[in-house]
């Protein structure tokens, strides 16, 4: 009985060098984890944003009432543009991953 024989015996339980089923299962779990983290991050950001808006509303409300008529359309356009940029950026990032 030698080390080489011992090693040959150990080699009998060696998994295959390539196992697409295992790799796919791991990457599926990674994608799931990434999705949960993204949702958690976005939920947190939305919650903080909402709380900030609620806290600042007494200050923001009079300002918006004064400037709303003048800057309303511009603000709407800027918001739409920002959303479009974020969507495109998200797609580009997702493709790169």
């Amino acid at each position: 009985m030698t080390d080489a024989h011992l090693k040959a015996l150990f080699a009998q339980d060696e998994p295959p060098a390539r196992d697409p089923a295992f790799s796919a299962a791991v990457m599926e779990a990674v994608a799931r984890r990434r999705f949960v983290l993204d949702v958690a991050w976005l939920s947190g950001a939305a919650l903080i944003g909402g709380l900030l808006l609620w806290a600042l509303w007494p200050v923001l409300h009079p300002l918006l009432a004064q400037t709303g008529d003048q800057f309303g359309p511009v603000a709407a356009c800027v918001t739409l543009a920002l959303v479009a940029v974020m969507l495109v950026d998200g797609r580009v990032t997702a493709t790169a991953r």
Partner: protein
Amino acid sequence: MSARRPGDEPVSTSPDVALVEQARAGSTAAFARLVERHQQAVRAFLRRACGDWALADDLAQETFLAAWSRIGRLEAGASVRAWLCGIGYNKHLTAIRSRTRARTREAAWEEERPSQASAMSDERMTLETALKSLPDDQRACVALCLAADFSHAEAAEALGLPLGTVKSHVTRGRARLLEVLGESR
């Protein structure tokens, strides 16, 4: 057995360096390549360390998932294979400690696995039994150094054990296995 396996090459020239960099930058494709390159070593180590193939594969999956979260903490120039086996070993120890661990495996996944007992020769079964009789630390050292060609230093790094302890574990473990296998002949 002479074929060079992923992780056997020097760290500085290994494709792992570039893959880790890309994975750190958020590349899922690079991480998938790392999984592909090291799944065999991690699963083989865990099979030998815990003796239950299905549990070992579950732990290996958890190992890679943890590695994905912690890849930013991997030191530059460190061996990815040793790092992954270290995470896997800690997962194995945690599983041992929490005996209440509930394993749910998809039926299809389970069916694909070869039957552990039927795939083994008598001698291999004897080795498996002898391996199970070793203490956990000793068994892990044997699994890395005798079965997977890890250097003592690499095994010490992976298992978080002092180098001298690894050396004595390997020596004692080898003696025990050879003794049992010699008796069975």
